[in-house]
């Protein structure tokens, strides 16, 4: 229970309009995008400048109150669900300033609550490019992206959020400010705490500012779509493209069930018999793009693509890529609950992983549709179910257990980009080692002696 006096303190610090204590308001911060049981926090506070953010953390630490930082609440692993009913949620959507976009030195400085797409648009206005583009970019925050090390469609060529993180400022559990990295390309001053904060899921500190790398935008791009009647051929085509020394910016994959479901919905006339579709985009210098596209087309044909389509213009590309854009929306419409996984395997293991996914779904009598980022082996098997049907949902949980076993056996990972949170914490040791868990817990305890920062997430504390 949080005391009335503390609530008054927060109101004095942040203004009444930034302290939410009513039951209805608190209930709306009890969930995120993960399919998990909600937990209602004791209070929700919204600092509107970074100094207030630090004071909030300090006040909570001094009072021994658990805290969970929340950006847009779109993570898929429960990272923003409060640990217990004493938790105070700290919102970052009052911290939305883009402090600097430096076109000469190619970096930007932002507060944690800036929305990814707003930031990318502001950067694009200055004719620069911020590549990480998670599917949630229209609402996700930079703070959330950093804390989850979010990826996106451009991961294969451009990397993920951590590859753009040059420097960071964060408050440790006690409210002390910590700084690491800089505006320079090179910086070895002290430990690489910047790297440590990436994908820390709100367990090591509260990010208050980030320095992000920008790159020049590609001058041209070209898209291709290929259809395969055999998964193995599609996978070999993916390997072949990389072997031909072409690194597409996007290399997306749709499985048969996804194609059929999308076609049912859009009546777009997709190849319903196809085992897989690949959607590929190459970008860069115009001449290079032409060469790369020609090489990709050759590789696709060599690997028995039954059809290769090269859209003539942006409008045609938009139409062809509709299938990829509609994949999640369509799958999500099929059944009440959509469980979106992101087990990731080495590229060459995609056919093995796909076979395992479909076998497991059949074994547990579940429907699954799989799409994802073929270029980096990051698949999104999406289980369609109804969480209110306890029997069915139990089967989903068992299927996911088995899925992770396979991913680990194939030398892959539990999560390519959606994070561990509480959703996947129990599998951590299987992929890593007992020592990894203990080391991480000791690290946490040293940095957060009262165990207040998102305590139950990741490895626990």
């Amino acid at each position, binding site marked *: 229970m949080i005391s009335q006096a503390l609530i008054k303190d927060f109101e004095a610090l942040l203004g009444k309009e930034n302290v939410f204590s009513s039951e*209805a308001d608190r*209930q709306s911060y009890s969930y995120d995008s993960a399919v998990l049981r909600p937990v209602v926090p004791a209070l929700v506070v919204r600092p509107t400048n970074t100094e207030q953010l630090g004071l909030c953390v300090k006040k909570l630490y001094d009072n021994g109150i658990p805290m969970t930082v929340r950006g847009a609440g779109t993570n898929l692993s429960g990272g923003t669900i409060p640990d217990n009913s004493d938790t105070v949620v700290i919102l970052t959507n009052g911290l939305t300033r883009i402090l600097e976009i430096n076109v000469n030195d190619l970096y930007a400085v932002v507060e944690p609550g800036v929305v990814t797409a707003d930031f990318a648009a502001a950067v694009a206005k200055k004719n620069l490019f911020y590549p990480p583009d998670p599917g949630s970019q229209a609402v996700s925050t930079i703070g959330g992206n950093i804390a989850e090390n979010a990826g996106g469609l451009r991961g294969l060529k451009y990397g993920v959020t951590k590859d753009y993180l040059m420097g960071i400022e964060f408050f440790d559990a006690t409210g002390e400010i910590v700084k690491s990295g800089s505006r320079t390309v090179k910086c070895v001053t002290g430990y690489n705490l910047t790297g440590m904060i990436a994908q820390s899921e709100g367990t090591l500190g509260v990010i208050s500012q980030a320095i992000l790398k920008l790159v020049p935008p590609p001058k041209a791009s070209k898209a291709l779509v290929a259809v395969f009647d055999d998964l193995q051929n599609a996978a070999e085509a993916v390997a072949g493209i990389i072997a031909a020394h072409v690194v597409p910016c996007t290399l997306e994959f749709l499985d048969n069930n996804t194609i059929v479901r999308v076609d049912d919905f859009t009546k777009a006339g997709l190849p319903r018999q196809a085992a897989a579709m690949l959607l590929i985009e190459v970008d860069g210098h115009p001449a290079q793009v032409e060469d790369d596209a020609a090489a990709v087309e050759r590789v696709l044909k060599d690997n028995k693509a039954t059809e290769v389509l090269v859209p003539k213009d942006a409008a045609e590309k938009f139409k062809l890529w509709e299938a990829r854009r509609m994949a999640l929306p369509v799958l999500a419409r099929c059944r009440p609950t959509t469980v979106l996984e992101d087990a990731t395997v080495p590229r060459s293991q995609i056919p093995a992983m796909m076979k395992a996914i479909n076998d497991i779904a059949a074994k547990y009598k579940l429907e699954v549709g799989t799409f994802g980022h073929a270029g980096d082996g990051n698949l999104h098997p999406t289980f369609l179910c109804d969480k209110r049907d306890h029997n069915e949902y139990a089967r989903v949980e068992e299927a996911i257990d088995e899925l992770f076993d396979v991913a680990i056996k194939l030398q892959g990972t539990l999560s390519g980009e959606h994070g561990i949170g509480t959703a996947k914490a129990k599998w951590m040791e299987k992929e890593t080692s007992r020592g990894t868990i203990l080391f991480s817990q000791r690290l946490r305890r040293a940095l957060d002696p009262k165990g207040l920062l998102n305590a139950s997430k990741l490895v626990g504390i």
Partner: protein
Amino acid sequence: MNNLHQLAQRLMALDDRITACMKCGLCQAVCPMFGATGMEADVARGKLALISNLAHEMIQDPEAVADKLGRCLLCGSCQASCPPGVKIMDVFMEAREVVNAYIGLHPVKKMVFRTLLAKPGLFNFAMRVGAPMQGLIFKDSKDTQGTVCAPMLNFMLGDRHIRPLAKTPLHVRHGSINERCPAGGIKVAFYPGCMGDKMYVDMAEACLKVLRHHKVAVYMPTGLACCGIPALSSGDVEGMMKQMKVNLDLLSQTMFDYLVTPCGSCTATIKEYWPHYAQRMGGAAVGQAREIAAKTMDINAFLVEVLKVQAVEAAANAHKVTFHDSCHLKKSLGVAAQPRTVIGANPAYKVTEMAEADRCCGCGGSFNLFHYDHSRKIGQRKRNNVVDSGAEIVATGCPACMMQLEDVLSHNGDAVKVKHPVEIYAEML
């Protein structure tokens, strides 16, 4: 209905539709209310969760939930971009109805919806008594939009800059119209909507002028009531059905090919909600509402699709017009290209797009009355986009949006006029 358990049980009827929400949070990007407050309880995901919690008896405070549900423009932006296509508007409407049945309708709303808007005679009388007195109360805002403000009534109207009521409403000017349709011709029922009848009479006149120009026979009976959306969005289904009944009776007296309105909200209500709620009334209303809904068209869509109005090349010195997509017009009815074509049909004007043309302007009908501060804040973003477009005129296909745009532009002292696309087209005829 007086116990919470019963309330919860009634809400459980919505459970299937609420469970369809995958909690992706993507509605945050488009929700005007969330844009203004940044509060999760204001976005569809938050509201759906609260309704669900009330249904599952996890929250015991229906007033608080009703309050949250009221903080919504019912603009449908969330639904239009919701990946799993949750029927958010239906859930909100039905939840408002159930919750209001439990806590009771606000007494002012009750008076307005059940008495004033359902009894056109009384409404018209009140408005006519009111109109000549306006001079005493309202003061000219001295702006491009021709609005007035009401310092004396600040306590009630806030600092709104609104159009004065017309001295003579449309239906008084014209009386009942029922033109004969020549063989092979087209006959339409013209439904001006409350605002077209009483506030934006010039706009409604422009519509009649355009219809005459195209030799379309018009049916416009006196005695039409409100379409019912204000009552419905306040959860007053009974009030809405009363109004719909008056309209159905009048509109079923004469044969016509299309029912045409200049108001996106009226069109959407007639097409989507009349058939739905007529089911509850049963009897003749079911067939009447279905038939009328099928014939109902937004006037821009009618001009382009039926009368084949086309855009022409703009003159060299054409005035720049930017178009605001009203939520009902674009997101509910899918009408977006047609009004732009109607504007482009007049060579003296050309369309210049603004950023976020389809982002809600913040009016939201009676939302504006109860949450004026938020409404203004949302409107300011729209105003900035309008002004940044460099247009001299902003056009929109819904009188409620026109009112909102005039209010924000007037407050900012901007020299941008607000017009309906049909007014622009009518100028050249």
